[in-house]
């Protein structure tokens, strides 16, 4: 049953780009790209409980690597992104091992600021504040900046990232992450290596973000510092929190929120209203859905199912309560 459902969903998702116009195909690719990075942040924040504001920096690292290594074969680029992201994750994690909560957030934020500063100041390499054009990645006889091909490329990685994250939650490592989040003292007492677990969580989350950034660069075709600064990092965090921390599907919903809400304003022809009302929408969603988007979606589904069941029951046999 589950497998059949998965196949139906996959077929639907795979056929979507042939049913939508190129603009929406591109937008969906963006949702998937942001979902990959959000899933990564969920590993370090949602599960291991480490508040990180550097996710957009890891994302940017992957994106800039893509922009700077366009002459390399794609497979090699990918390995390079993974390796660099791992190192970057460790570089952020190791000096901050003793920190937690807001202090940790602050230091990861400063790592992000330093990353942007470096981008701005290495102008001859990074294009500085003006950013860099990223040539499209050849895929067969088309390329990554063709919306449909870009979509397929991103879909492949999004599925892989989702499966990996689901797999992680079933492993010992996944349970160790939760233990570290719930109580470091208790985790240590049952023999969990805090250092190893935290560093691994950071490294994994950086890899997810780095790969997402790498895809972003190839699909969008342009990288510039503001895409990777403090605000996007905050938005990734919002995506995790709003989606429902610790749940992969929540990360998807959160990513969809941050990409699609601005689009929703655009559809009703009021794109200039988003910066004005975006904050209000955020407040409303947080207050009205205290369990996050995931919980809201589950409850909506449950409500529909209950309604459906009630209706069926009412029509079939009426029994006194």
């Amino acid at each position, binding site marked *: 049953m589950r497998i059949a459902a998965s196949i139906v969903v996959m077929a639907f998702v795979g056929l979507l780009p042939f049913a939508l116009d190129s603009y929406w195909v591109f937008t969906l690719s963006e949702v998937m790209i942001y979902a990959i990075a959000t899933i990564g942040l969920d590993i370090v924040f949602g599960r291991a*409980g480490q*508040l990180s504001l550097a996710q957009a920096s890891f994302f940017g690292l992957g994106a800039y690597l893509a922009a700077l290594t366009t002459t390399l074969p794609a497979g090699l680029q990918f390995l390079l992104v993974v390796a660099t992201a791992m190192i970057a994750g460790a570089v952020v994690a190791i*000096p*901050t091992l*003793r*920190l*937690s*909560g*807001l*202090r940790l*957030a*602050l*230091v990861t934020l*400063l*790592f992000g*600021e*330093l990353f*942007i*500063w470096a981008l*701005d*100041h290495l102008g001859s390499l990074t294009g500085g504040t003006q950013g860099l054009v990223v040539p499209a990645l050849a895929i067969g006889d088309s390329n990554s900046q063709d919306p449909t091909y870009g979509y397929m490329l991103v879909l492949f990685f999004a599925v892989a990232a989702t499966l990996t994250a689901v797999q992680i939650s079933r492993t010992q490592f996944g349970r160790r992450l939760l233990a570290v989040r719930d109580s470091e003292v208790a985790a240590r007492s049952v023999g969990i290596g805090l250092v190893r677990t935290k560093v691994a969580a950071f490294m994994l989350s950086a890899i997810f973000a780095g790969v997402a950034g790498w895809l972003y660069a190839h699909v969008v075709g342009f990288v510039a510092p503001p895409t990777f600064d403090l605000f996007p990092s*905050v938005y990734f*965090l*919002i995506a*995790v*929190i*709003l989606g429902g*921390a610790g749940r992969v599907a929540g990360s998807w919903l959160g990513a969809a929120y941050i990409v699609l809400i601005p689009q929703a304003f655009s559809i009703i022809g009021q794109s200039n209203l988003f*910066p*004005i*009302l*975006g*904050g*209000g*929408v*955020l*407040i409303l969603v*947080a*207050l009205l859905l*205290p*369990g*996050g988007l995931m919980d809201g979606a589950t409850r909506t589904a449950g409500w529909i199912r209950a309604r459906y069941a009630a209706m069926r029951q009412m029509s079939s046999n009426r029994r006194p309560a």
Partner: protein
Amino acid sequence: MPAVLAVGSLGNTLQVILGGLATGGLYAVLLLGVIVVFQVSKNVNFAYGELGVIGAFVGYVLYSTLHWPTPLALALGVAAAVVLAAVTDLTLIRRIPDRQGFDLVVTLGALLLLTAGTDVVFGSADRQYLNLFSDKARIVGGVYINAGDLLSLGLGLVALVGGHLIVNETGLGVSLRASAEDPAIARSMGIDVLSLRTAVWAASGLLAAVASMVIASRLVLDARYMTPVIINVFIAGMLGGLDRYWPPMLAAFGVGLYNSLAGYIFGSDASTPALFILVLAVLIIAPKRFLEERHEARA
């Protein structure tokens, strides 16, 4: 030339130190509001600076457009921020779901909403604010001792000492700490925890408005001028620890001074790496005891 430069550079360095301490004093005023709010409600309010911006703007409209007397205009501006801060607590903070990170999301939403609202209501042009004495100076040994700098520094010292007296030496401070330690016990002692919290939020609005007005007089007034300032205030708070008093308050002065000196010596655009190095150094070198938070932040 080199000899003149040497003498000149001492005067110039003192000039930068004065400017840095003045900025740090304003950071301290702002940080006091952050600390008391954190101690009583365990929240960090990201919209905090924007409350001050709105206070400064209300003052501006009253004295500049409606030509009300300046002291009255500024007082009403402060009052507006006080009311807005209390309303923020009553309408938003009390309703925040008790889940990790939701206070961050809600106050961030408030920041975005208030910033955009400021643009819409007051217009998005940059305005020049009142001088607040910054056009009056006395030259001592080549250093311009500016009345505006002295005002900022003085406000910072008042906040430092006054905050200490209130938080650590009065009955109000005891109630504050009691409700922070354990709201249930505080309630059983007859403390109205919720009202106290709203009052503390209102007080933080006052501090934000006063500091924002003086900062507007040093920079400009628009919907966003407080954002970089608030980031530095939070950095000082994190360095010292929001659950303590003296370390963060002194860090506020320190961050202001350090930033200005680093900017003067290494150039303005080196301030980001300079700050990064400072924070990393402090947090790596600091003893473990210092880093342990007495109360885990919710965010």
